[in-house]
């Protein structure tokens, strides 16, 4: 963080020293897990530091902190639901797999899925389904069209839409 300006650094420092303990306490009540609370408080401040401009003119620091912390809590809950569903289905296939997948592989897959889910969230259900049926399940375009009860041309439109949405929402994946 060498580019951080001293004034901003001071602001973050005073925000941290004034409210960090309070935020951890607030999160502990929400989470009933001291480690999780400390981690999320850390993530909250990290989010604030990386967003930078957000600090100026802040009137209600605690309301602001809890807004960010709540969003992170929601993301975390979503990730847990996604990961649990992934692992449950993976366990069903365990016998037919040549070896156990590495935790790293699973983590990467879950992270990618989280990003893809976010990107597809803004699309209509048919566009989302078209994208997953064609690119994840590798169904031919005509088969996707039949399943969704639309024309093949429409499927192609949906695929373009979804590709653009992914690129837009996950620039890191499309670099």
């Amino acid at each position, binding site marked *: 963080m060498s580019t951080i300006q001293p004034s901003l650094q001071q602001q973050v420092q005073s925000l941290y020293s004034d409210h960090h303990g309070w935020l951890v306490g607030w999160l502990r009540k929400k989470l009933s897990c001291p480690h999780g609370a400390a981690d999320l408080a850390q993530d909250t401040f990290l989010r604030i530091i990386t967003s930078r401009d957000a600090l100026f003119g802040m009137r209600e620091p605690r309301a602001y902190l809890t807004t960010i912390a709540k969003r992170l809590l929601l993301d975390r809950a979503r990730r847990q639901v996604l990961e649990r569903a992934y692992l449950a289905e*993976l366990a069903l296939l365990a016998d*037919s797999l040549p070896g156990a997948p590495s935790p790293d592989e699973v983590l990467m*897959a*879950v992270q*990618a*899925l989280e990003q893809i889910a976010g990107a597809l969230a803004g699309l209509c259900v048919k566009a989302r389904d078209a994208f997953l049926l064609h690119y994840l399940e590798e169904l031919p375009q005509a088969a996707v069209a039949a399943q969704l009860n639309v024309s093949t041309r429409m499927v192609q439109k949906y695929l373009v839409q979804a590709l653009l949405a992914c690129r837009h929402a996950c620039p890191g994946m499309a670099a």
Partner: protein
Amino acid sequence: MMRARPDIVAEQAAHWIVQLSADDPAEREQARAGYAAWKAADPLHATTAAGMENLLGQLHAVREPAGGDHRPARAALAAIAPQ
């Protein structure tokens, strides 16, 4: 309203990529040639195309822990899909 050039190029890249997996082999062949020429025409075309291919590569990779089976990925997405 004027649209940004990277957005226009991304849309073109997406169209090409969708044509590449058309059901008709002749159409696919034509798209392969057209896509290659389009990428060669401009460095921005090439980088945009590479980015989008990378994205699809990562989508395919989510099946790897399941030995290529798509079901865990599908189940995971379904679990958090907006209704």
